[in-house]
């Protein structure tokens, strides 16, 4: 369709009927042009044709209807209407295409994630075996204590660098143990609680304690534990286990505690 020809026929009509509002008044002309541009774009996009052919067809049908109507008198409102529908279909086609593309991207990324997860597991296993304590570790039970909060395992300060939230590699054995334990006990869930000593500001301590707990949670998720099974809390310098007066006491207070639920997944209330 050519806007020029339509414009021309409009001018001719205007010449004969001075008052009979021609269909191609600026509004409908513009609407038609925009819808046509949008349609052109989706029509030329191979992805859109592949993923949203129905939307494209509907956009085309509405556009054709708007175009046809534009040659009639007094149909300006109809032209605008069908042009509008056409534009909407084109927009919907683009959204559907983006969704489908994201789906494809997601599948690829998921494969990549699984590959990396396996590599990481292997990696940690190797590093544990290199430390030569694997067997010993198999025999030694998890360093847990039964408290009124349930089964609690403490990851000490030595597993983090000062002021950093990143878990050091020396934590690998412990982390693998936890993963193994959670895989063997699929109903159990954990709450990972971070604690700090009382040096530094309250807000920083709260953040550091939470970040440390989160980084433990991240590693567990990276190793395949469903994140729905993990809660994360940061308590800052609250609930010290030792007086903060000595360096030794402060080191004891800087810790991450992992609270395990019972076999049924019942976790004690958070502090």
């Amino acid at each position, binding site marked *: 369709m050519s806007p020029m020809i339509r414009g021309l026929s409009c001018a001719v009509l205007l010449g004969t009927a001075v008052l009979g509002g021609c269909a191609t008044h600026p509004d409908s002309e513009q609407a038609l042009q925009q819808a046509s541009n949008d349609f052109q774009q989706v029509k030329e996009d191979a992805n859109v044709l592949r993923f949203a052919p129905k939307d494209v067809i509907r956009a085309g049908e509405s556009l054709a209807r708007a175009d046809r109507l534009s040659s009639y008198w007094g149909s300006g409102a109809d032209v605008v209407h069908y042009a509008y529908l056409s534009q909407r279909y084109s927009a919907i086609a683009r*959204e559907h295409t983006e969704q489908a593309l*994201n789906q494809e991207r997601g599948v690829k990324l*998921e494969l990549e*994630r699984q590959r*990396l997860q396996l590599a990481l597991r292997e990696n940690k296993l190797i590093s544990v075996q290199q430390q030569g304590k694997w067997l010993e570790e198999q025999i030694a039970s998890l360093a847990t204590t039964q408290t009124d909060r349930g089964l609690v395992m403490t990851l000490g300060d030595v597993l983090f660098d000062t002021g950093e939230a990143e878990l050091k*590699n020396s934590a690998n054995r412990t982390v693998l143990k936890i993963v193994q334990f959670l895989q063997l006990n699929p109903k159990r869930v954990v709450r990972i609680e971070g604690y700090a000593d009382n040096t530094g500001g309250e807000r920083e301590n709260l953040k550091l304690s939470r970040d440390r707990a989160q980084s433990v949670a991240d590693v567990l998720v*990276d190793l395949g534990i469903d994140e729905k099974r993990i809660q994360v809390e940061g308590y800052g310098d609250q609930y010290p286990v030792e007086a903060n007066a000595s360096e030794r006491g402060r080191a004891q207070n800087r810790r991450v505690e992992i609270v395990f639920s019972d076999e049924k997944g019942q976790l004690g209330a958070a502090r």
Partner: protein
Amino acid sequence: MRLTQQALEQASAVGANADESPELKLAEAKFARAKSSMADQSYKNARMRFEQAELDARLAEAQVLTRKSQEQLNVLNARITRLRKQLQLGEAQ
């Protein structure tokens, strides 16, 4: 009218809301106007508004779903970045 109603319901079901989605806001406004056109027996106006409202709602729904799929990709990408970083850390030590 029924189709429009359905489209509006579907958009809400996937989590679209009129405060965040101008398209859904449009759809709801047009739906209301379409119903009053029906009441005035202005059937042609009603039909147009129902039709537009339906597509506005469908677009709103599609936009939410696209956004969600993008968010999922972001989560996956973040996890992959984290895994890569950990693998590098492992090699460094």
